[in-house]
């Protein structure tokens, strides 16, 4: 198992390199002169040239890449002019907020998705199975910003049950309860699409497994249905589902952009939205890099978890 983990960890290194290269090139291909953007159109040519010099923009591409990597290793992601702070600081301050939302969303999507998918799979073709298909189709099709706005409309404005945005109350002391209240709607919005995908995957995975010979063996020894599902079917269906959950984590990170914008949730997503609006290239670059690296690390963790559930993989 250990050698499997090390092996996979080594395989990640080139991937991360590729990610840094991609984000670096991203900035290169965006049209426009950063000097113009930073200084405005009123600046003199001298000033612009000076800035280009200091930013290393006149060097050949590969030198610029090397400088970029060097700065990355030092934690220097550049300066965000939207927030007038170093990019790394902007990201760090907001990372935990996004992580909070993403984790809550993945837990919600996984728990309900797996439960619903299993419940439907136990009676395929029945009313409840078809009902699930409809719900899944619905959640798969709606854009998250639409869902978010509708939820705000219903629960925030009409029913006045839940806050309409932000992370904490403007008035009042804040605290955990207030945080949780603020989290409900954005979490549901963020989780919706993933829930549908996970439910569908669970359903098909359970269906694959429920007709296996070993399920029949357990039944033939008098094991009850509940145990069959929980102790025999689900663990064998989980590897496929876990892979999907892992992939969903990545999508959640990117989906956060829309959800955070709709709910004014102060996370990386909202920061990215703002950065794109103001063409704050360093922040865009930094944000993409952090999200991509997070995605790679999450997938690594998923692989390890998969091997844990499936003893044959780690030995091979």
């Amino acid at each position, binding site marked *: 198992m250990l050698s499997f983990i090390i092996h996979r960890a080594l395989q990640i290194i080139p991937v991360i390199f590729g990610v840094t290269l991609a984000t670096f090139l991203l900035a290169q291909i965006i049209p426009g002169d950063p000097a113009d953007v930073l200084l405005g159109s009123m600046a003199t040519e001298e000033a612009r040239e000076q800035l280009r010099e200091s930013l290393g923009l006149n060097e050949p591409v590969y030198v610029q890449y090397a400088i970029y990597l060097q700065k990355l290793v030092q934690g220097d992601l550049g300066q965000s002019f939207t927030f007038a702070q170093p990019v790394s600081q902007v990201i760090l301050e907001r990372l935990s907020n996004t992580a909070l939302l993403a984790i809550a969303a993945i837990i919600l999507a996984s728990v309900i998705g797996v439960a619903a998918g299993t419940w439907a799979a136990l009676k395929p073709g029945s009313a409840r199975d078809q009902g699930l298909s409809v719900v899944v189709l619905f959640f798969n099709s709606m854009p998250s910003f639409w869902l978010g706005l509708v939820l705000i409309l219903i629960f925030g404005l009409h029913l006045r049950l839940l806050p309409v945005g932000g992370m904490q109350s403007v008035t009042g002391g804040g605290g955990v309860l207030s945080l949780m209240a603020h989290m409900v709607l954005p979490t549901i919005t963020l989780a919706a699409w993933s829930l549908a995908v996970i439910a569908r995957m669970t359903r098909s995975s359970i269906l694959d497994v429920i007709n*296996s010979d*070993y399920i*029949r*063996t357990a039944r*033939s*020894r008098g*094991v009850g249905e509940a145990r069959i599902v929980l*102790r025999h079917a689900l663990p064998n269906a989980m590897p496929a589902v876990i892979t999907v959950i892992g992939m969903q984590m990545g999508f959640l990170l990117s989906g956060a952009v829309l959800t955070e914008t709709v709910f004014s949730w102060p996370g990386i997503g909202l920061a990215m939205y703002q950065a794109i609006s103001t063409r704050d290239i360093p922040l865009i670059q930094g944000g993409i890099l952090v999200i991509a690296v997070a995605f790679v690390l999450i997938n690594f963790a998923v692989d390890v978890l998969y091997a844990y559930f499936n003893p044959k993989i780690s030995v091979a």
Partner: protein
Amino acid sequence: MTMVEQTQILSPTGPVLELRGLGVGYGRGENVLQVVHDVSLSVARGEALGIVGESGCGKSQTMLAALRLLPRGGRVTSGQVFLEGRNLLELSEREMRKVRGGGIALISQDALTALNPAMTIGAQMAEPMVHYQGMTRAAATKRCTELLDLVGIPGAAARLRSYPHELSGGMRQRALIAMAISANPKVLIADEPTTALDVTTQSQILRLIDRLRKDLGMALILITHDLGVVAGVTDRVSVLYAGRVVETAETQTLFESPRHPYTKALLDSIARLGDESSERLRPIPGLPPDPNNPVPGCPFNPRCSHVVPLCRSVLPELEDRVKGGSHPVRCHVDPYVEPARRLASGAAR
């Protein structure tokens, strides 16, 4: 109907398991695919019954139906299943669960797929003991170790911690047998228990099953396509073709004096060790029966060398028309029995 009443009382001399007119089909309404039409058989306490047939005969489906373990879409379309006089088809699911394992146990064909790949052998084996029979974990572990010893698996303690894919084919099958006998069943059904194994392992497993059922006093139903397997272990044999019993007899009698043309043709078609290579084999001509396209009349008529016109239109009954016989056959012609031994019957010839 005195016979019926008698068997409904728990009788130590009656059959321990009896199937009457069992039918199994898939689908509903217009599109029922009938895989078992009419199977009647019985096995007495301590007796070994062989069920012989080839692909499409319905032998596995019959036994799954008796345990009410048919896959999705399958249902019993007719007949009854009596375990010591109780009709299993009338039990609730909860009551049936108690019968499974303790009343009737099943050994499947392929031990690799029949064991949960994500659970250790010990965990799987102990599961019913701990969760349904109220044993403590320690007691269950002890019992599992005893069972593994009983089936000849050395190093039981280590084996309990292994996963199925870490064991050899023969050991997996032994583990599966241990699991089947763990609740002391009255009837052990072994469905092609040796087909996926090497020849030398097959022989050992068969002898293990035989010894266990004698030592533990179980009735054994051995489902197989291999007549050699049946010859070595069983007391009586039922031959199935296209979802029906076509012949039932004591083993020795079946091999010495088969009555149904299919049985005879099957025996003749087998390659035997002492044969000369210059002799051609004598396979049964034609194709095995297709449940999707059942044939009118006797299902074997397209391939039978004794066929008469009646065979193509009327399905024969399973009966024994020989004086003093206990060897029912489903055949209009009954070609191998001397006419003098036949009882006079009103059936058209």
